[in-house]
């Protein structure tokens, strides 16, 4: 067993873990943060995407011990002070989900995408979420949701300049 300590959704979490324990299982099984999902076993589907130190990472490709000392945000930590994150609101408004299983990972990837490129083109959005599979939506409403979030942040930025 190896000691790990990391900040997850703003709280410091310390635990003893097996070195082979995947981060996604640490989050789900030991911290009960079950919003992060497992959809494959080959790091293709992206359902397990979380932010590690602000960057989107598939948490099934990382051992918990590798995340020692890092700051992690999961889908449960995205809303702040009872307010949905704008990306969550836009997925809701644009019907960016059906069964909802891929959604937490998709939203985390989308958050990372707009952090890197606040005003992406449609092609850049499609490219940006191409590491996340969705089998329900055909992606169009997901793309709409991300465009909507980008537009909202642009209009928020322009109104704050005024």
């Amino acid at each position, binding site marked *: 067993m190896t000691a790990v300590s990391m900040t997850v959704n703003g709280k410091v979490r310390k635990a003893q873990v097996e070195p082979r324990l995947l981060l996604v299982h640490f989050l789900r099984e030991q911290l009960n943060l*079950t919003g992060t999902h497992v959809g494959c076993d080959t790091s293709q*589907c992206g359902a397990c995407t979380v932010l590690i130190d602000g960057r989107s990472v598939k948490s099934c490709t990382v051992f918990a011990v590798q995340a020692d000392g890092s700051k992690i945000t999961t889908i449960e930590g995205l809303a702040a002070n009872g307010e949905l994150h704008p990306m969550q609101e836009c997925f809701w408004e644009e019907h960016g989900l059906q069964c909802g299983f891929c959604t937490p990972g998709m939203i985390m990837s989308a958050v990372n995408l707009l952090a890197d490129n606040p005003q992406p083109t449609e092609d850049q959005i499609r490219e940006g979420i191409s590491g996340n599979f969705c089998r329900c939506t055909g992606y169009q409403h997901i793309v709409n949701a991300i465009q909507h979030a980008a537009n909202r942040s642009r209009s928020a930025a322009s109104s704050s300049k005024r």
Partner: protein
Amino acid sequence: MSTSPVLPKLVGQRVKRREDPRLIQGRATFVDDVKIAGMLHIAFKRSDVAHGRIRSIDTSAAKAMDGVEAVLTGAQIADLLGPMPIATPFPSPAHRAVAVDTVRYVGEPVAVVVASDRYIARDAIDAITVEYETLPAVVDPELAMTGKPTVIHPEFPNNLAVPLVPSGTGVTLDGKVDDTAIDRAFKNADVIITQRMVNHRLVPNSIEARGVVAHYEPGKGSMTIWSSTQNPHILRTMIAAMTGLGQDQVRAIAPEVGGGFGSKINIYGEEYVAAAVSKHLGTAVKWIEDRSEAFLATTHGRDLIGYVELAAQRDGKVLGLKLRLIADVGAYNMLLTAAVPTLAMMMANATYDIPAIRTTLTEVFTNKTSTDAYRGAGRPEASYFIERAMDMLARELKMDPADVRRRNFIAPNQFPYQTQMGAVYDSGDYEKAMDVALRAADWKGLQAERDAAKAEGRLVGLGLSMYVEVCGIGPSSSLPTGGWEHAQVTIERDGRISATTGASPHGQGNETTFAQMLADEFGVPIEHITIHHGDTGIVKQGVGTFGSRSQAVGGTTLLMAGAKVKTKMARFAAEMLEASVADLVFENGTIAVKGAPTSAKKFADVAAFAYVPVPLPDGMEPGLSEEAFFEPTNNTYPFGCHISMLEIDRETGEPKLLKFVAVDDAGNLINPLIVEGQIHGGLAQGIGQAMIEEAVYDESGQLITGSLMDYALPRATDFPRFEVHSTVTPTPVNPLGAKGVGEAGTLGSTPCIVSAAVDALSEFGVTHIDMMLRPEKLWRIIHGARA
């Protein structure tokens, strides 16, 4: 009794989904999120040979591992579980949840480990050694039909799961076949199109794979089972039968379900094993399917070969259709396996009035994973065969593909239309849907664009296809589980509304659409309503979600239960208001006498009286809770027209979809936003099949597309923006006029894409290309012709 329009009507509106807040915050409960104190974890040792006899299984090393509670072989499981039942009336080989002496496909379970955590369970699986006597395997159904090189089930000679069944014109119910009409049609034809077409095998790949938690409580003698299933009530029935418990002693829960697409209709061996092991050990157990496991262990879709012959006059009028179908059903019959290809027979003529039709169907066992329902289930295959043939006919006659279709449509005044195949189409206006599509896509403009591109040397093509499908599945004569649905609506003591439905959703948004209907019916804000589903402990009865039946059957049932309780509520209110029921108006959560708004009683007030009725009005029972069963008299038949434009790179053979326009007619729509999402999802799966998805086996029976690294599941970059439109032709089969929409997108899209590819490559003389459109295949057409 009326409902006032004080609150805006919600039916027909793009209402945001009520399911979403929990899903977008990671606060929903999927089956892997269910935890029970003391719960153990199950893993399956699976066969890595496609066909073989088990010589020996050594479980000693696994049993000796710390944390391993039990290791059970097929023989030990057979003591706990009988052979697995199916739901079709066809003969079927005995199928054990865990193989006893012979394995017949790669991935078939051979042993079960029960351990304290999932990592240990997997370690123990790796520690089990199985020795096989390898037998020859067969993966090609047309070879398997000859009985060579192997017979998979000795009691099924030549591997024929279902030997040739004829259907269509001149075939009577007792199986007599008269070929006069079909022979005449082919004799009188000016042109005959003949083509073998393959509707290839797919892996459903819901992003949540399967999973189950079984919790037998020895003290109570009852079982609770959570499973990622589309139909918890069928699961309850089957689990009870297989474990020897009564249906009253089993509670089945479909928690949040992460997609299904038909693959979670079947009740699987792993579900039975979990239940049996939980009962055997007296503790809760969990099994969660890995993706690699899902590729092998969850049923596949399609895999139907069609030999198509179309006889027509020079003016494009089709005189006859022959369709010889060969279905590769894999190693065993699952719940609905044998029935799926029969739907392809039933829909053989699709939107066309064809005077003479002969179809035959043969189902064949091979050493592959079993097939069963996958989004569309038989109807996309039918649509693919006839639409590709119509396109070939248009090409042969040098007619516009739209004109050939127009020449053959069943006309609006022919409905209800009895087909040669035994279906009775409820309503339709196919020409209108096509005309809307032609206008929306600017068909003439696209043709000019294509011609200009071709003149520049680019390989651009157009595809057009029609479809009609069977949805809203009922009545009971068409469904062995019963073709009805159940609902209960309760006005709670505080005036809020609880409703239960047997339609158990997995992404369809029933909590929203069903609440929209009840909000309008009762004149209350949608926030006052909760829709319960997916739990046989709460939802008394149900059939489930498949065959695009939730809205048409489940939605109708819910409204019927709502109407009953509304009537009773009005009687209580009439007593309180000393008014006649006819004079009452339901308005914004109150009931008032028409024209006297100050008289208004809140729902809570009426409920308080109904649950403590002093004095109890004459002839009334206390309480406000009513249930309904509804069985439609017929299926519904939604339809539409799809148009695509596709370009193929001359140098690499890579196809790129440039444009996709879909016009769908699902009857009346409850929530157009949700309908749009369903269409998009169906299109993605159909286009995925046509362009990139394919389950490929090698000759030894190994699935070589066995993970998401090898199987091309579509990504966001694989699609252009879909343009969707609708026409509305209500169905007379249910009072909503709703037909169903879940599967629609998969029907028109595959032939539409392939026809576009053939059009793009027309200069090479190609008339048909089998899916999927692998660049290598297209490159060979382009460069082979040059050489």
